[in-house]
């Protein structure tokens, strides 16, 4: 093992005998573009609704529940797809979330929620994961579209403007504190704050 490592290290350290410096620099540059481009393309492929609902767990449960909601069909024709709410848009946060998602691949392979019954049994835990994430990042994924600074309270309903101009404005509450279950059905809500 040590011998192999030593040989590898010596090979890397030695200057190239056959290839010119220009070839290595340019070749490395082009290979970098291809690899990075490929990585990013693959990452973006996993960041589509089509990819998400290619697993029946997602298509038969959460996607079906999304369909009647306002985030799927609405007056202005803007649709929030799975990654818009469930994957951070910032690169580092996105990579962190993608690494966490390897757990979901495990779940898909071993069928943790492969029936409706299993899914319902796990729903509270899964929902709590998302509530915790959104609470921790101040509902970042909501705010990617719903920017507080751009809100016009005068066109909101009186109840909405009252809540948004007080609790939300002061930072005491974040979107997810009140807007739970807006895109999917809710789990058993006993002992959830605000649902007593």
């Amino acid at each position, binding site marked *: 093992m040590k011998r192999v490592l030593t040989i590898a290290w010596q090979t890397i350290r030695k200057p190239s005998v056959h290839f010119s410096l220009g070839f290595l620099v340019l070749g490395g540059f082009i290979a970098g573009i291809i690899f990075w481009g490929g990585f990013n393309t693959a990452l973006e492929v996993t960041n589509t609704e089509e990819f998400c609902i290619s697993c029946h767990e997602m298509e038969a449960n959460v996607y079906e529940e999304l369909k009647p*909601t306002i985030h799927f069909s609405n007056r202005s024709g803007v649709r929030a797809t799975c990654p818009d709410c469930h994957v951070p848009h910032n690169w580092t946060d996105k990579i962190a979330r993608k690494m966490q998602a390897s757990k979901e691949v495990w779940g898909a392979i071993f069928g943790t929620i492969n029936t409706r019954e299993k899914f319902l049994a796990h729903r509270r835990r899964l929902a709590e994961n998302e509530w915790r994430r959104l609470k921790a990042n101040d509902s970042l994924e909501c705010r990617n579209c719903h920017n507080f600074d751009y809100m016009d309270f005068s066109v909101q309903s009186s*109840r909405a403007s009252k809540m948004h101009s007080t609790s939300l404005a002061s930072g005491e509450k974040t979107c997810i504190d009140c807007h739970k279950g807006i895109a999917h059905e809710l789990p*058993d809500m006993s002992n959830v704050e605000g*649902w007593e």
Partner: protein
Amino acid sequence: MKKLITTLVLVVSAAVTYVQAESSNIATLRDNTALNEQKKTTAIPKVINSDIKQKRSYPMQPPIIPHTTRNYEVTLNSNKCMSCHSRQRTEESQAPMVSVTHYMDREGNFLAEISPRRYFCNQCHVNQFDTKPEVENTFVDMHTQTKQNAKAK
């Protein structure tokens, strides 16, 4: 025999004319649009979202919901209405509290939670659409009626 046939023919033709005359008066969902035509659909009215309480037409009328309730879940798992209108939540939400009768079981005992028989809010409480009544309503509530009676005397 001949007389009988004549009478029958007369009766049948009279019936046919009657039915034909009546059929144009019967309200159908298609509003008597010809079969080979597509009826023009009426616009779907919007839910009134004013948050302003409406007058009740009669004493026991379940109050109308003065706001939209799209996607409000009232299921075994959760009751979205109660997250504002329950006894514990009204201080924060400033929403009207559900009446105390909703906490009573059918024997009149008070429960800590909303009574199961009152759990499904939208069995009695509904939104109000911003639309004209389809049928004319001549209902007079009892306050107007008693006033009218007093005046008549």
